């Protein structure tokens, strides 16, 4: 049979395709309905957080940092509760990473703070002697892309029914609403409001001035994102 196939390239190709294709089906399909349901306490990202997430992606922080806490005592001692599938329901793309040159960041919002991030992102080794993480000083002047973050919110709300402007259940039984603007201008206003809160805890005068002027440096968006990781 095989010898015959080797003389009939088309059927050979079909044979190869079938052989390789069905493993994928069995692997991927069963999980789809199950895993996309958010667990209680998981909120969609706000405009500013999403802009920060895009800063994270733009700079490939995922090259060194994972966001997946595995169920081992050593890991939960270090990073907090092990990850649950539903916590990632609004993560497009997922950012689990595959290399921990730096620590996991899945819940870094629990144990690092705005001012620490500010110092650290500017020059990691100044805070953590021996750190091999590069500094990202340009984030203090580059402006965050709020437009694209807003477009992304609209997209996930329209295509994947991500619940913006709707109550989502929280762990303490309350509900929370993540607001999304009705227009680009409103999205900017919402992001700025949030940015002001972050900037209030920061020390860098240029950043504070920029936010006061209505601009949003990348670092502010990034810190908003890092603080949201809990």
């Amino acid at each position, binding site marked *: 049979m095989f010898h015959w196939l080797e003389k009939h390239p088309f059927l050979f190709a079909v044979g190869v395709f079938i052989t390789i294709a069905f493993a994928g089906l069995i692997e991927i399909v069963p999980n789809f309905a199950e895993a996309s349901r958010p667990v209680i306490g998981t909120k969609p990202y706000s405009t500013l957080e999403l802009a920060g997430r895009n800063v994270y992606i733009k700079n490939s922080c995922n090259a060194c940092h994972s966001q997946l806490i595995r169920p081992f005592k050593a890991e*939960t001692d270090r990073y907090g509760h*092990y990850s649950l599938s539903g916590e990632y329901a609004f993560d497009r793309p997922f950012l689990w990473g595959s290399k921990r040159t730096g620590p996991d960041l899945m819940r870094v919002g629990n144990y690092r703070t705005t*001012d620490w991030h500010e110092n650290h992102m500017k020059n990691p080794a100044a805070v953590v002697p021996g750190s091999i993480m590069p500094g990202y000083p340009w984030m203090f002047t580059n402006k965050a892309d709020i437009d694209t973050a807003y477009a992304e919110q609209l997209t996930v709300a329209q295509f994947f029914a991500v619940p913006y402007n709707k109550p989502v259940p929280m762990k303490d039984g309350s509900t929370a609403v993540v607001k999304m603007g009705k227009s680009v201008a409103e999205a900017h206003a919402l992001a700025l409001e949030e940015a002001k809160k972050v900037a209030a805890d920061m*020390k860098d005068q240029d950043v504070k001035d920029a936010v006061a002027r209505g601009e949003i440096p990348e670092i502010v968006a990034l810190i908003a994102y890092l603080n949201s990781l809990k």
Partner: protein
Amino acid sequence: MNKLYLWGLIITAAMLGATYLSVGMSKGGLNGDIVNMLAVAGAVALVIITVFVVIKYVRQMQTDQATGELAEESWDNIGEYKNSVPFGWAIMFLGTMIWGMWYFTVGYPVNAFSQIGQYNEEVAEKNAKFEKEYANIQGDRLVEMGESVFLAECKVCHGIAADGIDGKAANLNQRIEEKSVKYVIEHGSNNKLLGTEMPMPDRNGLFNAATGTLITDAEIDAVAKYVANGLKDANSEGAKVFANTCASCHGPDGKGMEYVAPNIAEFTPALVVNVLTHGKKGAIGKMPAFDRLNAKQKEAAAAYIISLSKGE
């Protein structure tokens, strides 16, 4: 013995030696951890298996002859023998296939493995072990344990010498810095340092009993210096302000009063535990809460911090 096998043995020995050294040099070594042992065993097996299997085929390159019946075809002059498959390979392929099917349909379901179950067991086992040990940890041992917590969790912000790395976090070698005292007097403080919601009023609530007016900027400077100095200089201007403005809550010696105000003369276990439980926001920045530390670990961290400021 053939030279090749000798080489194989040399590589194996080098591998084992290197493994022994690198495991031995690491603190704790294999640590009795099955996962560590499996990983190291896997690495060693990998080298040994590959080296000896390849040597076997290299031997055949050296001594054997290519034989067999050639297929009719030849592609760009490449011929092909009709030899049968190597027996060992075929058996292992078949064997692993059968094992795989068995494992997936029988072995795995019967074993009912779940990674969360495994995790719960691991945590229960370790907790039980350490709970037993915790009972006996006191005094110097507690400080030692606290140092270990500090080095793993706190030094990232407070620095290895607990000096706060140039003002990026609190300097824990002293109870409090002047800048922080000033900030608290001017802005008040509400960090649950007493474990409860009990704010310290800001300057608009702080009356100097001696002058009968709100505390002035000059008085703030003076008292801040006094407090940061560890309330030592009893004759200073600051001491007077303190006695008339602050002592009512913090006590004449600054050691605080239960349910009224915290100790600002020295660190206490309760204070540190409260900071670790609720976090703290002040002039320097924000200190996160540490939910993931257990009660004993917080107590130990406190003991260590207290030992630091005593050492001054």
